[in-house]
């Protein structure tokens, strides 16, 4: 979906707050990320489905929460009444904690998974080769994708072929998509934004990983 999350190149957000460090380093935010990932509540299509005004008004943690609650409630994994009951209980009593339920026999496997680097398949079939010029297709996919709008229609050069992957699921909980080569494509900034020397930006290179079906001959 070409939603608000696809913000590469958008102006108007102001300066970067370079001192903003802490998020995710407060324990509960990392814990929320763990909970959201383990439960399957979090997904990128789910985050991207947050309405644009809410997306921009929400912190990172709020988006993970909103996405997870929506998915887990919608799928009937948890119930509204449960959330409300626990919110009241946990807000009213500062000593209250969530219930504890362990399964220690599963932990080593989880830790092994977390500390194993996922391997990327080699691209045994690839339409384009390193050095080829390619154009990013014009498109407007309804589901989740990984093709930022700012490269649409632009011509770049294949820098590397890191491997082959399935396209990501288009919908929360959906199946993965077509298995195909992924290319790192290098663009000259002038082919994306024009000549910005007058704004203090000499030409630079922009490299984006793009699935084969996002690309066509130039």
């Amino acid at each position, binding site marked *: 979906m070409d939603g608000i*999350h*696809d*913000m*590469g*190149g*958008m*102006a108007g*957000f*102001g300066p*970067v*707050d370079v*001192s*903003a460090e802490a998020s995710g*380093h407060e*324990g*509960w935010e*990392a814990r929320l*990320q*763990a*909970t959201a*990932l383990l*439960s399957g509540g979090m997904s990128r299509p789910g985050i991207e489905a947050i309405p644009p005004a809410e997306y921009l008004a929400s912190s*990172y943690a709020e988006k993970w929460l909103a996405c*997870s609650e929506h998915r887990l409630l919608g799928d009937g*994994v*948890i119930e509204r009444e*449960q*959330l409300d009951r*626990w919110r009241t209980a*946990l*807000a009213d009593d*500062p000593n209250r904690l*969530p*219930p*504890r339920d*362990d*399964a220690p026999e*599963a*932990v080593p496997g*989880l830790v092994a998974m*977390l*500390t*194993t*680097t*996922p*391997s990327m398949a080699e691209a045994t079939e690839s339409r384009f080769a390193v050095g080829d010029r390619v154009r990013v297709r014009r498109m407007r996919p309804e589901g989740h994708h*990984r093709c*930022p709008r*700012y490269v649409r229609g632009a011509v770049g050069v294949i820098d590397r072929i*890191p491997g082959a*992957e399935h396209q990501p699921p288009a919908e929360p909980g959906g199946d993965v998509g077509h298995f195909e080569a*992924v290319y790192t494509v290098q663009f000259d*900034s002038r082919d994306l934004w024009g000549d910005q020397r007058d*704004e203090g*930006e000499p030409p*630079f*290179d*922009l490299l984006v990983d*793009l*699935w084969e079906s996002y690309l066509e001959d130039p």
Partner: protein
Amino acid sequence: MSDHGHDHDHDHDHDHGDEHGHRHYDTPGSRRARSALEVRAMALEAALVEKGVVKTDAIDAFTDALEHRFGPHHGARVVARAWTDPDFKQRLLDDANAACAELGVAGVEGNIRVVENTDDVHNLVVCTLCSCYPWPLLGLPPIWYKSFPYRARAVAEPRSVLSEFGVELDDDVRIKVWDSSSEVRYFVLPARPDGTDELSEDELAAIIDRNSMIGTALVAAP
């Protein structure tokens, strides 16, 4: 799994177990009050555990990995090794996953490509669509990396963004911006500063800050 692992295992082992469980949430003994958002996050965990969907010790272990097994100290070790061992550096550039594994650094969100800063090239990493980041080498990202201005502007006006971080590059340095749109995670091998010839690998690791491995800082000699 890590050659510096002992320190860390020691750090977090004592936090585990029932008495210390849920240590990430605030209780009256904590310095901060619970925010409404924190209560919402706790309620989500409570509902999921109550339903048996997730186990508390799984959440503990996952959180622990995010906070302690991953982090920029690993990235700094990798950089320091690359600066002092040319063969390792070559392996790192050719096959980062294998080279990182030599130092016991591995994990999810860790399918790494290392890109090298030189006199002529400066690399900058961003994820415009999301906030993808090389967890094993750098841990969880800072707020600014996830912020809208950074995601929106790094791909279109990198020098303007870098100047907000205090980084001014010569006009003839070519910037390469990497937008992490697939499962590959980009990691910057910063340039070794002059005047550090006498430093040991551990001393070098100590001067490498996280931002230099994202591309929003240069490493300075101590």
